[in-house]
């Protein structure tokens, strides 16, 4: 079947609900609807109709307002792969078939698996891909940040990783930002992996980080099933743009658990691991903390403290301290200047030590 182009009126595009994942796309431009025998790619934007509501009854808009969905609504979302152990696994389909809304931030995918405790995903019908007036598909990559050749500044870099989803990473990141900002320390922050969702991004903005980026800014709707070059591209692009703002500290959140494929690939990327001054590890329990710290230590990553959900329990915290041999900080305390100042000094001390060691080795 030949490709079909159908002009889209400005009014129709204005009435459609644009998902968070499309936040870098200029909605004021003129669009065409591209239909036919198409093989979608991750990051392609599609206009879709909501057929049957399921798990996601709301769509997170560009503004991060969670708009109520109604059957028959037209939405603009992005095709993407989805990895969420407590929700769905989804992949970009091979053609414009009926598919699912697998993330509230606006990700369309063919559903592969779902957690027992969630409803099936909201069913949507693709009406076509969005294209510009030259007939080129609109993909998130077309609106990504430009590459930066060289950045002179070298701020401190703190990476937050965790045992799994919902281990406290995002809360830890936001609290860390707040703690640093309260001391007058300038913070840039980014989320390097995961699935496009505004809550994490906005919490970093709300805490006072500036600038804030996620992988959408590098042109990716999610990082599930991307290759190592893409991970490196995201890290390099977002890292450089944060450094351009000359912050004192860069905070990077890495989504999901260490065993998640892309997370583990990122932690095996030398340019990323060499860049990090310290890894703060968020865990749900002491055993998870021990496993995570061991995993990171074996790979010679500079894990320097533990936080996360386990810190709600003083006994779990003590277990983790004993078994991991590292300090454990209550997630809430990271926002306190008394704590964040010590974390900042610790990172600075490590950087100075590293530089001194490097001087000796090269001298």
């Amino acid at each position, binding site marked *: 079947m030949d490709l079909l182009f159908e002009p889209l009126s400005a009014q129709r595009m204005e009435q459609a609900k644009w998902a968070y994942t499309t936040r870098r796309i200029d909605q004021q431009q003129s669009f065409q609807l591209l239909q036919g025998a198409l093989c979608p790619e991750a990051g392609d934007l599609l206009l879709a109709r909501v057929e049957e509501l399921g798990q996601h009854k709301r769509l997170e808009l560009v503004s991060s307002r969670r708009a109520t969905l109604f059957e028959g609504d037209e939405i603009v979302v992005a095709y993407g792969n989805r990895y969420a152990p407590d929700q769905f696994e989804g992949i970009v389909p091979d053609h414009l078939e009926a598919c699912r809304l697998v993330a509230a931030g606006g990700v369309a995918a063919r559903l592969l698996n779902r957690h027992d405790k969630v409803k099936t995903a909201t069913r949507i019908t693709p009406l076509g891909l969005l294209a510009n007036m030259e007939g080129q598909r609109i993909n998130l990559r077309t609106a990504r940040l430009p590459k930066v050749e060289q950045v002179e500044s070298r701020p401190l870099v703190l990476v937050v990783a965790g045992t799994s989803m919902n281990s406290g990473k995002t809360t830890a990141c936001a609290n860390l930002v707040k703690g640093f900002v309260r001391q007058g320390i300038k913070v840039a922050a980014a989320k390097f992996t995961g699935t496009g969702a505004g809550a994490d991004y906005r919490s970093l903005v709300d805490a006072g980080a500036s600038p804030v980026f996620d992988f959408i800014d590098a042109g990716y709707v999610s990082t599930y099933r991307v290759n190592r070059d893409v991970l490196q591209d995201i890290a390099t692009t977002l890292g450089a743009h944060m450094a351009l703002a000359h912050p004192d500290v860069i905070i990077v959140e890495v989504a999901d658990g260490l065993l998640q494929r892309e997370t583990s690939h990122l932690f095996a990327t030398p340019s990323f691991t060499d860049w990090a001054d310290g890894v703060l590890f968020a865990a749900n329990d002491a055993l998870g903390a021990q496993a995570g710290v061991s995993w990171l230590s074996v790979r010679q990553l500079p894990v320097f403290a533990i936080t996360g959900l386990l810190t709600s329990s*003083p006994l779990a915290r003590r277990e983790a301290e004993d078994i991991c041999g*590292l*300090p454990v900080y209550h997630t809430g305390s990271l926002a*306190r200047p*008394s704590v964040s*100042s*010590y974390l900042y*000094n610790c990172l600075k001390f490590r950087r100075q*030590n590293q530089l001194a060691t490097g001087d000796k080795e090269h001298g």
Partner: protein
Amino acid sequence: MSKSLQPGKIHQRTITGMSQMNYFVYFPETCRDDNRILYTIHGISRNAEEHIQGFISQAERCGAILVAPLFPEEHFPRYQRLGTSVQLERADMAFEHVRQDVHEWLGFPPAPMRMFGFSGGGQFVHRYAMFYPGRVARMVLAAPGWYTFPDPDRKYPFGLKSTKDWPQLTFSLGKFLQIPTMVMTGEEDDLRDKDLNKSREIDSFQGLNRVERAERWVNANRNLARSYDISADFRLETVPNASHAYGSYLGHPPFSEQIFDFLFED
């Protein structure tokens, strides 16, 4: 070196100033004249002279001068915490006067100190080292009842956080963690005796007795050293058969030998 200083004899000196304070000095016959000084800090029994007497044979073995300040209760009721508040009864400042007097008297330039403290003295020594890590070369803490943990989320003196009484505290943990430290606890010093601070806060995070509290403090510092990427030396030693009495620690012959070996091993 002062001519008034007789080797092999315990001297008592008095300093005046913000508050009068005595200290004891022993100058060994084997003194190597190389600034080998051990500052020993008493517990709440304030037995400063007994500290000197108990260490004389080791001082002679190592050629080390002994200095034992006596913090009078009326002026320094909370010397273990370095003072009642940032402005009141500051034992650390009084101790600094002692240190200056020692160096002026002996004619040695001040150098980072080798310090020992028993019980409340152990509390004083580790807090002093946290406040002034550049002034302490090595330290031994025997049987402290409780500790200031290197925890920025707990208020001083439980942790490092500033309070109304202790405002604007700053600590150089990177330096503190590099001080070689040995903590000694008696094998039988695990009782909740009348002198042990049994506040709920201390029980809840430090442990129920001196042995548990020592283990947790040593581990906390080792953990933090890993965090800072410092190869720290925090040791924990058990003194066989010792209860909390100073005499029962001294009664174990290797006790004082271990202290001197550790403090003067460099």
